[in-house]
């Protein structure tokens, strides 16, 4: 077990493994996202209150979910890097940030587009929207902080602290709709015992979320390979592998 973990943490091994794994994430992700898009846009029944505007749900909720999921992955990776001093974990955290930032932007943008016809406004400073915006700034701050150091090890440590402290924002986003009065609706899907959404509306949503998760798996594999190459630029295995 420990030997296996040690092997996994070694850059050349991880580099090869990620290269092998990436297509296994990428192709199913593409297929699922296409199926879910068709299902969500065509097959799913129209909402009785929101009409076809509710179809924005199928891109908004998965991207909002990813924005939080990726942040937690980033913070856990940064934490592992800090505690066990594993460089690969820091590299993984660094690779998460731009992907997470893009999904956070997407969640905010699609939410805004959905808010206009339903709430009559593009933006309100309510708790859900504000905490999600803070998430975007956390990602951007993390990336800015990293790039402000020349020494990768110092960048790793400083940015890890930000990532770990910032994770407090994730439960705030999740519970914001319960703790404060918000214009944003409370959760209707994550109530697992009894979701307050029709089941035929739910299937494409789940497919899209799984598709986005796999897509993230693909993107992080590719980015992490780049990140490993950059950090290992003078390592022996790189020269030997050619």
């Amino acid at each position: 077990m420990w030997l296996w973990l040690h092997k996994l943490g070694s850059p050349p091994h991880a580099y090869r493994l990620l290269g092998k794994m990436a297509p296994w994430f990428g192709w199913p992700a593409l297929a699922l996202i296409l199926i879910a898009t068709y299902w969500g846009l065509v097959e799913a029944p129209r909402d009785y209150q929101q009409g076809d505007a509710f179809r924005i749900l199928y891109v908004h909720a998965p991207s909002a979910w990813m924005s939080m999921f990726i942040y937690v992955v980033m913070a856990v990776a940064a934490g592992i890097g800090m505690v066990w001093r594993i460089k690969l974990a820091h590299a993984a955290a660094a690779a998460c940030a731009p992907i997470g930032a893009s999904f956070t932007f997407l969640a905010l943008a699609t939410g805004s587009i959905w808010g206009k016809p339903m709430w009559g406004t593009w933006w309100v400073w309510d708790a859900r929207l504000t905490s999600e915006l803070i998430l975007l700034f956390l990602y951007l701050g993390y990336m800015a902080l990293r790039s402000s150091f020349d020494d990768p090890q110092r960048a790793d440590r400083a940015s890890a602290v930000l990532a770990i402290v910032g994770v407090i924002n994730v439960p705030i986003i999740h519970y914001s709709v319960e703790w404060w009065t918000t214009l944003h609706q409370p959760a209707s899907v994550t109530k697992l015992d009894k979701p307050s959404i029709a089941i035929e509306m739910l299937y494409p949503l789940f497919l899209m979320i799984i598709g986005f998760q796999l897509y993230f798996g693909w993107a992080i594999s590719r980015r992490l390979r780049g990140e490993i190459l950059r950090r290992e630029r003078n390592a022996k295995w790189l020269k030997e592998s050619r």
Partner: protein
Amino acid sequence: MDLQEFVRMGGYAGYVWTAYGLTALVLAWNWWAARRCESAEQLSAQRRSAD
């Protein structure tokens, strides 16, 4: 299914298609950026080992 009806999205065409279009853009950007991140480093590693 009526295509025109589908494109109209019950009067919400502008909102729905913009949201899906943006999603496609962000996914495409991620694809391009991740690929570039990997291949740029591969290229520079190749150059170094050629020296």
